């Protein structure tokens, strides 16, 4: 087998093992902690018989490992169970909301990735001069703000000082694409702000790292303009670290959306998770937690695979 393929397969296998371990942690973490699901559904005044009946019905009398395997087996077949609070099928509730979350996250990704790389290039080009200092200063400030704080500054600025947008983001199934885009403008701006800083700083660092090389000096000496040097020689050689940090930040978007959705009352997966944590609806929390963890791990693996594939030393083994 080609060594690069072997590495990639290894990495994916490791990721799947990790996902399995994470599912175990999520299941046992919620099951092993004190608290009784049957009691939670029926309330404190439930009779012992009713509790015993419900435990029987939910399969709570089975040993923990059997329940874990049943849960995992069902989840792999798309059956996530029903919510305790209202008895609605979880997979059905998730479907539409997952779409909304992905729409929000991909809008943020489509804007932030090119913007971050562009700003990183400019900052690297003018390293140490005012454009670099300005960009670095602004990104340093946004990097230390939590999502919801950034969100409220943006809301204040863009709905009160300059009344351009609505402070809530509502999307309905029947909405057209443009209407949807307009509705999510504010949350997308916030998410872009939150992930931009880190991506941009890593791009700048990766480019500056390559700029030390001898071939850059050659390119400069043969008379290329600084931007051409960066575009033609530095960027292609630093694409691996840039791509991997970009994807890691997209993984970070997964967490960012949870808070931002709550800020803007955006009806999607993060809001759904937070609501059901408050209601202590375990099956929902386990299912949604697993989805978020799964996406996060998958993106992390993707970042690893890309940096393996993009590494010329691994691509052309001796």
């Amino acid at each position, binding site marked *: 087998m080609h060594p690069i393929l072997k590495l990639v397969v290894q990495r994916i296998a490791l990721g799947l093992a990790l996902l399995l371990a994470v599912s175990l942690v999520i299941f046992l973490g919620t099951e092993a*902690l004190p608290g009784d699901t049957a009691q939670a559904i029926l309330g404190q005044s439930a009779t012992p018989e009713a509790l015993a009946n419900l435990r029987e019905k939910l399969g709570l009398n089975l040993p923990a490992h059997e329940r874990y395997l049943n849960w995992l087996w069902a989840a792999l077949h798309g059956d996530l169970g029903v919510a305790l609070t209202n008895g609605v099928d979880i997979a059905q509730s998730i479907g539409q909301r997952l779409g909304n979350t992905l729409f929000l996250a991909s809008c943020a990704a489509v804007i932030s990735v090119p913007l971050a790389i562009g700003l990183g290039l400019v900052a690297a080009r003018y390293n140490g001069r005012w454009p670099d200092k300005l960009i670095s200063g602004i990104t340093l400030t946004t990097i*230390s703000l939590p999502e*919801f704080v950034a969100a409220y500054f943006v809301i204040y600025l863009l709905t009160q000082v300059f009344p351009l947008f609505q402070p809530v983001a509502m999307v309905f199934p029947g909405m057209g694409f443009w209407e949807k885009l307009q509705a999510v403008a504010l949350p997308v701006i916030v998410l872009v702000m939150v992930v931009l800083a880190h991506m941009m700083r890593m791009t700048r660092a990766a480019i500056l790292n390559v700029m030390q090389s001898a071939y850059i000096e050659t390119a400069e000496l043969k008379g290329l303009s600084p931007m051409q040097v960066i575009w033609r020689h530095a960027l292609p050689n630093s694409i691996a670290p840039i791509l991997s940090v970009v994807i890691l930040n997209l993984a970070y978007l997964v*967490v960012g959306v*949870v*808070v931002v959705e709550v800020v803007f009352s955006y009806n999607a997966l993060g809001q759904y*998770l937070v609501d059901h944590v408050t209601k*202590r609806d*375990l099956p929902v929390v386990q299912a949604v*937690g697993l989805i978020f963890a799964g996406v996060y791990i998958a993106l992390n693996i993707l970042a690893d695979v890309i940096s393996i594939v993009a590494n010329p030393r691994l691509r052309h083994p001796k």
Partner: protein
Amino acid sequence: MRLPFSAMLGIFLTGAFVFMAVFAQFLAPYPIDAAVGGVWEDPSATHWLGTDTIGRDIFSRLIYGGQITIFVALASSLLAFSTGAFFGFMAAVKGGWVDQVMSRIVDLVMAIPSLIVALVILSVLPLNLTVLIFVIGLLDSTRVFRLSRAVAMDIAVMDYVEAAKLRGEKQTWIIFREILPNALSPLVAEFGLRFIFAVLFISTLSFLGLGIQPPLADWGGMVKENKDGLIYGKAAALMPALAIASLAISVNLVADWILSRTTSLKGGRGA
């Protein structure tokens, strides 16, 4: 050595926040949970930052809120440091399967975003200060573990550690008397960053309604309470958010300064 302006500003602001937190009971003009004015009053001489959605004094609540935010963040970052550093040093000194087991557990926890782990755990546990401090502290300790393990790995191969081992010193002596003093400076800078992480984390949880519960108030919870005020154009509703941001930035400035000092120290030694 001359103090750079950013560090000076950071130390001054951090000090001011800590001072307000410690003496909140004496500084706050009104009690934390009493309606002392009309709803959404504008800032005035009696209410410096105006009043909130049920007529409580925002300035007083901000001071009390700071006390709780800083207390929870400090307690959980201390917890994160004591457990993270202890196990990190132990993993580095013992090596072998002890190191393997601990490192894999940490890898596993860090493979899921902290917020998701916290939400899953908090769906089962009761929401009180102790639980919150433990959840944040233990999640945060994974990062301290990695750092202190890496730092201790470098120190564990030094001659003086070897000498201590040959002298027949116990493991605890090696951890606390040989490794800890030499690992202290990178850990101190890290403490600042972990403290910020804890501030942001508890604020985020409270904002989501899963952190500090009323009648107690913290900054994250205050952002949540006051968010309607923002839509009516009350800038005072931004104050809790501003407080979180300025605390985070000022601690960051101090940590940056400590970090730059320790790295220049290392450079000077030629290490």
